[in-house]
């Protein structure tokens, strides 16, 4: 099924068999930006729910190894999302009707996103990135690129306050079904986070109660 927002994660780096050297996918300026936007918007409209796995890599300059977390994600239009981390710790976070619910070590906490602007900012950024619903976001300057396999949307924050959190966001979009397969968030320090989505299943029935953390 052609999807929109979320597509199976595709690897950006190709491993060279002879030299075992990682080679980065080459992106060039996109030729038909208007056509891309139209197709991505159309594909986005068809997605009502999504279930998938995710791998989150956090790259910190003082750490020799990446901090890798894995888990499962559920999404229901327009604004419900649930992340269940499985490794290296078990932890659940859900956005449900304006509230953030967290289950950590057996304890459930609830926060109102209206009273916690930082949570709201992070959550909105994540939901919009996962949705692919970012093309008309006035807070960013967009650069569109493409390779043989994927599209790349580079988002540079315009406001100084936005830049405090991220220096750049990169969305990798599959040519196959115009869905976001990877989200990369870069910080001015050079540290960055990459979240890759795999095993995506679209438009299954997801009850609202599945987004309630208990």
């Amino acid at each position, binding site marked *: 099924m052609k999807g929109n927002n979320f597509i199976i994660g595709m690897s950006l780096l190709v491993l060279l068999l002879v030299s075992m050297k990682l080679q980065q996918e080459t992106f060039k300026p996109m030729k038909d930006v208007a056509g891309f936007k139209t197709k991505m918007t159309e594909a986005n409209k068809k997605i009502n729910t999504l279930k998938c796995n995710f791998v*989150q890599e*956090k790259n*910190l300059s*003082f*750490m020799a190894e990446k*901090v890798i*977390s894995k888990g499962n994600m559920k999404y229901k239009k327009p604004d419900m999302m649930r*992340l269940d*981390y499985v490794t*290296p*710790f078990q*932890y659940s*976070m859900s956005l449900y009707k304006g509230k953030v619910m*967290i289950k*950590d*070590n057996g304890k459930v*906490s609830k*926060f109102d996103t209206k*009273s*916690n*602007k*930082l949570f709201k900012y*992070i959550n909105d950024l*994540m939901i919009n990135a996962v949705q692919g619903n970012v093309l008309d976001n006035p807070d960013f300057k967009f650069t569109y690129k493409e390779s043989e396999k994927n599209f790349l949307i580079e988002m540079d924050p315009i406001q100084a*306050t936005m830049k*405090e*959190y*991220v220096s750049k966001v990169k969305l990798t979009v599959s040519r196959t079904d115009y869905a976001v397969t990877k989200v990369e*968030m870069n*910080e*001015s*320090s050079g*540290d960055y*986070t990459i*979240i890759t989505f795999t095993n995506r299943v679209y438009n299954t029935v997801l009850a609202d109660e599945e987004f309630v953390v208990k």
Partner: protein
Amino acid sequence: MSSYKTSTEPTSGPEVPELYFKDDSAHFFRTTVNTYGKSLSGLLITKKVNDDTLKVTFMSDMGLKFFDLEIYKGSYQLIYCIPQLKSEAVMNTLVGDMSTFLLWPYLERKNQVLVVSPDKHEKAVVRYSYGDDFLFYAYETNNRLRKITYAYGKKYKKKYEVSYDEYNEAIPQHALIKHKKFKLMIELNLIER
């Protein structure tokens, strides 16, 4: 804490243990900071870079950083911080809390005195001078560190306490930092990797 009398016998207590930094590996804590109805939750990563530098980074579960600190001995450098936490008072508090929790000698601990606690669970309590203030280290049997109290003034008024529990192979899996003068509580759960 003013009721804690100086011990006449014995006169010395356990040394401050190295709970988390026996090697130079990084340590990960699921951490929740609660203050006046607001909360931040995520992953706290600490690493002893060398004998003079402690790295402390706190980030959301989705990877966005809340703050990034380098703590030395007697000073610190704020590498990065979100606007909501960017104040000298907040950072000084967090640096103090993290240093105490991680047993990092931000200031030199001096003048060790063994005191007697009225709490029967505290088998040994050692008081140190710490700058102009004091640190009380309370140990259970087997010299397990149970609690650290930061106190000030002639009557040793409590500023905050760090309590440790759920020990596994001599390492506490859970810790709680609780301030007495204002509403700030930090809960930390060690993640085994």
